[in-house]
Structure formats: structure tokens, C-alpha cells
């Protein structure tokens, strides 16, 4: 089993939903559906916003910068929260990390 990525490593990577996962918003909740297992996973509004930011950003670090501006928190704090969020989704098989495309 490969070791968990450090925050620093994670921030440099791109997080994306695998092909077998889709998500939709339900007003105040975001639901991710694992098409392989048929299981639904609910995210609160903050989690839903984090997921959107990850999808729209080239790296986890970029997503953290977007969110820090929105939530008025320090970049360090948001980076920590976002990496914890990514680890949770990684554990559930709902995101994948990959090297960002060269710009």
C-alpha cells in the first residue's frame, strides 16, 4: 500500500473525480454517486464548494487559494482543511490525484 501523500505533495497535484463518479447539487447538499457501487455520498455545503473548486482548479493548491478568498480564512488553514477533505474522498474512492498537465 503506497503511503498517503503529504499535504505539500497533494497541493501540487490535480484532484479529479474518476469516470465512475458523478455529482449533483441538492440545494444545500451535494451528492456524489459511485456508479460502480450504486452508493450515494453526501457532502455539506462546504464540502460541495470544495469539490467544485477542486474540479475547476489545475491543482489542489490553486483550489485552496480560491477558497481562502471566499471563506476569509488563512491560506494555511484552508490548505489543511482541503487536504483532509481530499484524503477522505480518496479513502472512499471518490477522487483521484494526478500530476497537473504542463501549462
Amino acid at each position, binding site marked *: 500500500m503506497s503511503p498517503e501523500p503529504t499535504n505539500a505533495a497533494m497541493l501540487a497535484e490535480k484532484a479529479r473525480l474518476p469516470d465512475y463518479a458523478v455529482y449533483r447539487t441538492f*440545494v444545500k447538499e451535494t451528492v456524489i454517486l459511485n456508479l*460502480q457501487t450504486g452508493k450515494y455520498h453526501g457532502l455539506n455545503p462546504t464540502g460541495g464548494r470544495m469539490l467544485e473548486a477542486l474540479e475547476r482548479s489545475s491543482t489542489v493548491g490553486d483550489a485552496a487559494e480560491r477558497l481562502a478568498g471566499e471563506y476569509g480564512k488563512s491560506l494555511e488553514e484552508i490548505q489543511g482543511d482541503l487536504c483532509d477533505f481530499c484524503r477522505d474522498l480518496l479513502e472512499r474512492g471518490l477522487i483521484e490525484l494526478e500530476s497537473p498537465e504542463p501549462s
Partner: protein
Amino acid sequence: MARHYLFGLQLDSSMPILAGRTSEASDGARKATLDQTTSSALARSWRPREALSMMERRAPGGRLIMAVEAHPELGYRVAAPRFGSHVISRDGSQIHSALPSVPEWRWQRLLFAQVLPLAATLQGIELFHANAVALGGRAIGFVAAAGTGKTSVGVHLVSRGATLLTDDVMALEASAAGVLVHPGPWLAGVHATELKAIEREGRGCPGEVLGRSGKLYLSIPTLDHPLPLAALYFLERRGDVDRLQILESRPPDPQLLLSSSFIWYLKSPDFLARHLDVCSRVAQSVSVSRVLIPASVGAGAVAAAIERHAAGE
């Protein structure tokens, strides 16, 4: 051959069925054909050893009530002793039916409860296990476990002036106009006690009585066009409440919506993703409420309360 419109399908049928007719032919419509055949011809066309069992319902003693099988090329077979056997093509566009010698309304119970809903699902329509009526120009839906009384509530509303949209199976389609409810068949089964209750309120029977099998089966004309879904009521019979309560779910609980699927045995990614998509659209555009019903409150009172709530009173 007659052309009908129900569950979002333009259905050309070689047999008369209890559903609204249409003379229109729409190029963009989802089309299906329904043809009668013999049991032996249908059996010859099916290869049971290559089929997978999708669903089986049995009575407590083991007697088969209904079975659905899937074949990778031939499609689906839905069979229920005394109600007929039907093979539906993989794309939901062709249905071949071997029918028992029983009154039409009886074999059509299976057609409307399982066969056409499956065909509609295969053609891209999402289905909820729910009823719907048109009230004040809007579609109002009711979701409830079997035996809670959603048909009774719907029939009471029809007797009070609403128009039936569908009983038991609600066909939904996300569109630019919101989530549309397509009309269903002209058939609803209700307990005789509910018709007596309607009579006691001074209202007439909302449809033509076709026959009895446990419940009374009525032919009730439906609306002939889809309507946007405006409100969805989840009915719950509760022993722990002493008065009827309508609780608006703001925001709607995703679990309530996601658990309302009708064709639960189709689990391919496409069907699952579409169900999620439609539920998300419902959550964003439809008022959702839970109706907590004590044992002492009948369907008539529930219908009256929902009518007032839907009117914003």
C-alpha cells in the same frame, strides 16, 4: 392500431388499452409498439437459459407472483401468472404480449404497473413510485409506501375537482420548463370504502368501475399532456402523531428523493446517473413536504389538507 400517449411514450397498440389516445405523430417522441402474440410464439422467442433474473416476487407459500428477466440481446421478459407474459426489446421500443383470457382491465394492471414503465425507463424516462394529479394547472405528486393510501388520496382529490395525471407510477423528465410529469394510464385501484367515503361527502364516483380484485378498479381519464411538477408530498402513516401535519422540507432531503425510484432493479451507470440528475432537478425546482398522518385520519381529510396546502392556504 390505436395510438396512445402515456409515461412519455407514443405507443402504437394493436389492442385497445386504458389510456388517452392521440392522433398526433411527433417525430421527436419516444415511440413504442405493443403487439399481441401467442404464449407459444412468445416462449419460442425467449431463451431463458441465457437470461438473468432481475426480480422475482413470490407469495408466502412460494407461488410466483411476478418475474423479470434480462437477456443481453432479446431484452426483458416480464411475466405474471394470470396477468400475461411480455417481452420488451432492449431499447424499449417493441413490446410483444401473450395475454390470458381475462377482462382487459385485469391484464392491463401488469402492463401499466411493470411493462410500460420498464419500456419508458429504457427510453430515458425517470420513474418515481408515486401518484400525481393536476391541481390549479400544476402537477402535485404523492410518494408513499404501499398501503399508505396514496391512490386513495389521489382519488379523493379527483372527486374534489383535480384531474388524474397518474396512479402508482410517475413518469418524470427534466426539461427547460422544469421537471415534467407525463400522464399515465386511465386505471386506478382503490378500496370500496374510499368510494363510499366520497359518496358520503356528496361527491360522485370519480371514474367508471371496471371490476374488482380486492380493490375496485376504476377507469379515470387523465390529462392528455405533461405538466411541470410543482409539489411533492411524502405521505407517512404514523402511530406517534395525534394530528395531521404537513412539514415543508426546506431544503428537500436528498435521501427522500433518491429512495423514490420505481424500477429499482436497473442499476446500470446510465440509469443511476439519470435518477440522480432528475432528483437534483426536483430538489431545486419542486416544493417537497412530508405529510405525517395519524391512524385515525382518513384519505379524504388528507386530500383536503393537501388541497389547502397546495393552494397556499
